[in-house]
């Protein structure tokens, strides 16, 4: 079982194809798989559908794949930080499926857990509910949402051991565990790979069973809104 690869391009070798569906972790620019996204840009894979909470900013995150027009469709909850995204969407070049944030997270978790659909009250009575099955439970109305199973999941963690057990750091965890679960194959990029046995088994956030390939790399970790208080 060899999970550790030398770099992002090698870790993605043989996994990319035009028209594929990719789940990505991250919230805003926090905890995004920036190295894998860069490698997908360099690979030039086209017509991609991304399930990702956000679409990055113009020159970072998924935004770099929008610049090169490699993205056909986004499934996201919030895309307000990306002017190029807005331009492509309003001109009809880019498809967009808005999912409520919790619905998107649960779709990933469910899809990766063998649950093809689930009922939620999120979005009942809104545009989100249009065309979806409605069902009453105990007097309340719910809508059916589908689990997501992606061709590939790309995620970012803080540390991994060489068997793919992952540990995240602070709010950089966000969508990464559910995204990882939703992939038929998952590639993770981390800041540090440590030998097996050096992570406390009780402190693993995502077991290595969900992670198939792994790279270590340097991360820019760009900050979107630098807000400070006086010391």
């Amino acid at each position: 079982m060899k999970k550790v690869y030398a770099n992002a391009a090698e870790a993605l070798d043989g996994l990319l194809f035009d028209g594929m569906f990719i789940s990505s972790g991250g919230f805003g620019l926090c905890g995004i798989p920036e190295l894998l996204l860069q490698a997908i840009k360099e690979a030039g894979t086209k017509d991609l559908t991304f399930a990702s909470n956000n679409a990055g900013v113009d020159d970072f995150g998924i935004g770099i794949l929008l610049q090169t027009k490699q993205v056909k469709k986004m499934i996201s909850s919030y895309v307000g930080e990306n002017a190029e995204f807005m331009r492509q969407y309003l001109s009809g070049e880019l498809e967009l499926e808005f999912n409520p944030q919790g619905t998107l997270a649960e779709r990933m978790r469910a899809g990766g857990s063998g649950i093809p659909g689930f009922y939620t009250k999120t979005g009942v009575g809104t545009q989100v509910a249009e065309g979806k099955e409605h069902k009453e439970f105990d007097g309340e109305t719910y809508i059916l949402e589908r689990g997501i199973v992606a061709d590939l999941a790309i995620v970012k963690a803080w540390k991994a051991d060489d068997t793919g057990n992952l540990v995240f750091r602070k709010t950089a965890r966000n969508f990464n565990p559910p995204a990882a679960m939703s992939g038929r194959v998952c590639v993770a990029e981390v800041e540090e790979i440590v030998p097996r046995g050096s992570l406390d088994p009780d402190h693993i956030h995502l077991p290595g069973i969900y992670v198939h390939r792994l790279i270590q790399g340097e991360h820019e970790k760009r900050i979107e809104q630098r807000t400070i208080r006086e010391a």
Partner: protein
Amino acid sequence: MWDRNQMAARAAQELEDGMYVNLGIGIPTLVANYVGDKDITLQSENGMLGMGPFPTEDEIDPDLINAGKQTITELARTSYFDSATSFGMIRGGKIAAAILGAMEVAENGDLANWMIPGKLVKGMGGAMDLVAGVGKVIVVMDHTNKHGESKVLKDCTLPLTGKGVVDRIITNLGVLDVVEGGLKIVECADGVTEEELRAATEATIVS
């Protein structure tokens, strides 16, 4: 009339000791400044309970942001979790209250705060999950838009975030509750008469 900070201070009165609360972006964020001695745990839906204040320059950490993507800090009580768990606690009714902004609110509790067709394409983020799941939904917003038109309506004109979800509306002019048949005036803001509040409200006010 209340300013932004006075609206936030009024909203903070809604919070009770021991509550887990989610604050939206904008004026709701300011509510945290007015909780006083009450033991309130703030949830940030990107995966954190126990949100602390903004960091000092030295404390800035790119791995620690709130749902508005702002850098923040942790507290002694803080816990982190993934987005599926985060919305599990929201949808599951574990969060006592959400305080959020709005573009429009209707007398039946309908809320619109995520989209202006053909104009603004940003997305609902976690707002639809929050209003569907939390115990109490409190809207904090200006009573009228910049053209002076009421944002407290008989029916929302914009796409909805949630249907019949709002419990209480706090505006620069006062506080209203969503009740059977319309809205009930709870109080008027400083220097605002009930007549002025009624005049600025399109929704049915029941006494």
